[in-house]
């Protein structure tokens, strides 16, 4: 069983459309949506929920104003400036419990937070594990680790070949949780200066965590000069650019019709994505990139 994660650094480069297409192309896999903050994959895969679980994680302090003597010690020690006028701001509170431990009259309790939900669903392409983190919640990393773990278990039980994960944007906690321990990262970029800048950062993150990256340049014809620069940069880094997908409105039209683009139309975009998937399968099977 091999784990593929699709990342981009910069948001909006087309990760979800590509993962949606892989869902239609790959035969034996579990799909995972690791973007627990702004999940979109379900809009294409139209899952039927089979299991829904609460995700309890992290704590928030609570001051019992009856017991509080307003000594002010908690406000003094809190480094997250989460206590004002002896009231906790749950958004700023990081749940460290410092105040709880030092309150001389035990007026502070720590309450577990229901930080979101995770789901196991059925789609016409196979099982999907996804989640929804509550607004302003921390611990996206833990939720992602959980979702990935569930996906792996399902893959092992049902003897499926792959897990294919749609990753979050950025390079921080949720990205690290989506990436660490995966067999291969597909980095979807676009030939814009911002896309290039962000690609360099996400490549460094892959290196840092020892996951071999492959690059796909989406909307390739938007700026072919930039695209060539990405290619030579990747060449220098010893990273293969496995696909250059042209810009086509069909990609957006497919989203509007809630279909993977490879099922919505048959054109140069879908040909490219099909080719890319075959390449990825070859890499995953042969562990061709294990040395990177």
């Amino acid at each position, binding site marked *: 069983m091999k784990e593929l994660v699709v990342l981009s650094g910069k948001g909006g480069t087309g990760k979800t459309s590509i993962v949606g297409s892989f869902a239609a192309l790959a035969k034996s896999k579990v799909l995972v949506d690791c973007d627990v903050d*702004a999940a979109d994959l379900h809009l294409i895969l139209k899952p039927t929920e089979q299991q829904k679980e609460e995700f309890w994680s992290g704590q928030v302090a609570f001051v019992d104003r009856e017991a509080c003597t307003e000594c002010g010690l908690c406000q003094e020690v809190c*480094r997250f400036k989460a206590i004002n006028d002896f009231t906790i701001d749950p958004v700023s509170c990081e749940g460290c419990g410092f105040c709880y431990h030092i309150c001389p009259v035990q007026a502070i309790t720590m309450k577990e937070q229901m930080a979101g939900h995770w789901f196991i669903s059925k789609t016409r392409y196979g099982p999907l594990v996804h989640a929804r983190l509550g607004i302003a919640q*921390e611990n996206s990393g833990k939720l992602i680790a959980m979702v990935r773990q569930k996906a792996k278990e399902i893959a092992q039980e049902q003897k499926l070949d792959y897990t294919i994960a749609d990753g979050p944007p950025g390079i921080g906690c949720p990205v690290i949780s989506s990436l660490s321990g995966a067999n291969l990262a597909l980095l979807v970029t676009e030939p814009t200066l911002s896309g290039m800048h962000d690609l360099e950062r996400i490549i460094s993150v892959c290196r840092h965590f020892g996951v071999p990256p492959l690059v796909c340049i989406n909307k390739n014809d938007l700026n072919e000069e930039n695209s060539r620069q990405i290619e030579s940069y990747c060449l220098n880094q010893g990273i293969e650019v496995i696909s250059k997908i042209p810009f086509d409105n069909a990609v957006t039209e497919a989203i509007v019709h809630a279909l993977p683009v490879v099922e919505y139309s048959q054109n140069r975009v879908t040909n490219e994505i099909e080719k890319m998937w075959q390449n990825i399968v070859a890499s995953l099977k042969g562990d061709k990139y294990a040395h990177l």
Partner: protein
Amino acid sequence: MQHKNGKRVIISIASGKGGTGKTLVATSLALSLAGKERVQLLDCDVEEPNAHIFVKAVLNHKESVFIPIPKVDENKCTYCGKCAEVCIYNAVAVFKNKVLVFPELCHGCGACSYLCPESAISEEYREVGIVETGNSKGMDFVHGKLNIGEAMPTPVIRKVKSYINSEMTAIVDISPGTSCPVVEAVKQSDFCLLVTEPTPFGLNDLILAVEMVKKLGIPHGVVINRAGVGDTKLDEYCRKENIPILLTIPLDSRIAILYSRGITLVEGMSQWKNNFLRALVKIREIAHERACST
């Protein structure tokens, strides 16, 4: 742009979905104001900061962002285990004659050093990112960069925000999403501009972003980017929810090409400046109304 109490307003530019054009809007908004009044552009997308590319910022000052982590003096330590017990993040482990600190897990809360009965813990500083400041085209510029491999962007975001100068209008570029770091960056804004696109993804993620700004009680409006693609559900949603659409940017290959070259919209197509200034007038009205009514 002034508040009733003379304080300049803070406008944050956010979106649920990535890649909808936040940086395009933030940079053009800031540049439209520059020259007319004092303005600051702050890039709080510390995971993938891009605004500097567009405004060609000249950065002349760099500061490290540290978080305090515990350092145990094993000569004083009795291996009582208190530090491990209080650390909610499991960043300290105590063995029979060894204390291990896991710096990546530590939030720097300070509980362990304060509560160690032997005063065996002092704090040292670990760099998690940097903040760079400078200027660009008549504006003050600030951005932060999270170090590669670091998980927690919040301390870097806080540091960027510490540069907000109440004598200037501040435009704050925010990372996508609605989780903790995004909220940290949006907090204290007088207005939040939500950039989206008229696709099912754009709408789905806008609804989450609206939920977030409502929870924070921040007045907000929408910018529709790439209008013309997708469907009309976005307009319908904004109308139904009574969210003002302050600016509409069409799907236009000329705009996409300018963006790809790192050229701001108002510099590449100067006729857009007036549209941004008009949006700013409306933002000011809404922010002012809210400030007066609270």
